[in-house]
């Protein structure tokens, strides 16, 4: 029995001592009892990896705020500023609680926050959106109002699409339709959502969030019923081809005849013939380049194999990283 009790103590005591939530709670008690050195030790232990990794975001931010306050009260102002800076970078939305901390602490925190310009990004962890109307909604929260540029970048860092560039006040919602700046679908695979905090033309800090971009494809469920005639598909293609030819010839003729309509009697230059000829030739090329069409049975068989892009999926694949000016990206 005695041996069992000794074994239980041996197992449970280190576990309790290494529980970061417990360390934070004990640190708060020590702070309230003005045992500042002991409190600082407890918070530092709780915030040191790997213990810090098992601490929730709220708890980590709380621990950092207490640690910063303790360092200031211990008259270590530089150390307090470094802790508050770490807190702002960790959670740009955090605000010091004026009911908990004395005014000199909240003042110093606000001072550090206003000088440490960084943006918090909020996006859905995993979302599937329709290709036509879908938009990824991104919320941005700055530590303090400043100029930002938000963009989607390729895996190698090359920009794909700028979503917003300008001042960011309290918060901002931007939307992305899964396309690049030319309107084409973004490439599948790893992308970056980046926000650059800028002072003038200088990028002070970059926040990056890794995204995985996938395009879902689907097959056409059922072949459409054949048209009224046995050669409906051929007729449709030929109609399109004839329309191209007719449009080219008509617009080309209109170009040639424009002077007679607009300025009859004037001697017009021959340049209109170049444009009219190009239009007519384009129509002819459109006519000849049109697919000839397949027999309806073959078309129906193949139609079930046609794949079309229907939706895109975006999921976050990691945490945001903050890159300071001068640091090498990724």
């Amino acid at each position, binding site marked *: 029995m005695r041996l069992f009790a000794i074994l239980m103590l041996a197992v449970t005591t280190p576990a309790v001592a290494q529980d970061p939530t417990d360390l934070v709670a004990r640190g708060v008690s020590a702070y309230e009892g003005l045992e500042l050195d002991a409190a600082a030790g407890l918070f530092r232990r709780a915030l040191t990896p790997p213990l810090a990794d098992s601490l929730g975001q709220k708890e980590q931010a709380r621990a950092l705020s207490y640690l910063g306050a303790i360092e200031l009260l211990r008259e270590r102002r530089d150390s307090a500023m470094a802790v508050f800076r770490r807190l702002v970078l960790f959670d740009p939305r955090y605000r010091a609680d004026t009911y908990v901390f004395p005014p000199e602490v909240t003042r110093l925190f606000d001072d550090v926050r206003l000088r440490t310009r960084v943006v918090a990004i909020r996006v859905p962890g995993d979302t599937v959106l329709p290709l036509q109307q879908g938009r990824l909604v991104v919320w941005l929260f700055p530590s303090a109002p400043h100029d930002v540029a938000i963009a989607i970048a390729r895996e190698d860092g090359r920009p794909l699409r700028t979503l917003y560039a300008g001042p960011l006040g309290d918060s901002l919602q931007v939307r992305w339709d899964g*396309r690049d*700046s*030319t*309107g*084409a679908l973004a490439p599948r695979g790893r992308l970056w959502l980046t926000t650059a905090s800028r002072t003038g033309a200088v990028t002070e800090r970059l926040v990056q969030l890794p995204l995985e971009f996938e395009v879902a494809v689907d097959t056409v469920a059922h072949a459409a019923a054949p048209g009224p005639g046995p050669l409906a598909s051929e007729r449709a293609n030929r109609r399109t081809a004839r*329309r*191209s030819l007719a*449009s*080219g010839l008509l*617009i*080309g003729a*209109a*170009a040639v005849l*424009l*002077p007679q*309509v*607009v*300025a009859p009697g*004037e*001697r*017009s*230059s021959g*340049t*209109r013939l*170049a*444009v*009219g000829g*190009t*239009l007519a030739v*384009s*129509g002819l*090329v*459109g006519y000849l*380049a049109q697919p000839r069409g397949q027999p309806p049975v073959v078309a129906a068989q193949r139609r079930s194999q046609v794949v079309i892009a229907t939706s895109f999926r975006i999921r976050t694949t990691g945490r945001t990283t903050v890159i300071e000016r001068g640091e090498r990206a990724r």
Partner: protein
Amino acid sequence: MTWLIRWVSVSFATVCVVGPIAAQTPFLSGGASIVSVHSQGVGIGGPTRASGTMLGGMAMARFGRFEVEGRYIQGALQSQDFVQGQLGVGFHPVPWAYAQTGARARAYVTPTETERWVMWLLGVRVEAALVGTTVRGDVGLWRALALSANVGSTEGRAARGGEAGVTLHLPDRPMWLRLAYGIDRASVAGAARRETVEEFTLTVGIQRR
């Protein structure tokens, strides 16, 4: 009457543009042009002909069905300088048709004087796909709702014009090329003046959404 027409044009442009600008993601396009200009004039001094090759540019922003477009060309027309700018707003009621209104200002500058022609336009344009979505053709006609020119008289002012062109959109590239022919005639009967200007334009552009 002229002021009424201008007011209606400006109001239409404002209504067309302001609301959609706030609601839509713009589709932007711009390009640089080389323009061959041929001008024929009839005046008190008899008929005149001049031609020149000039540089220009255009920029366009589309918000859904609405469009704002600006164009500018400048260069030498033999012994005189030629400057032309145009700003218009338009609406696509259907994908293949486009209605536009706007103002076109043109100046012939010589060492002794500057002759200005300002036209308020209303026009339509039709477009058609010629080779898939890669090559498109278009033709349009416009008429001047109002015209002012410092040529000594305000009697019998009229202007009209048209343009036809073919545009090649490079596949998988944001670039485009356009070849266009445009002609317009503006006249002030009271001053016995008539100006016909032909433009042959090659534009290289880039688009972005």
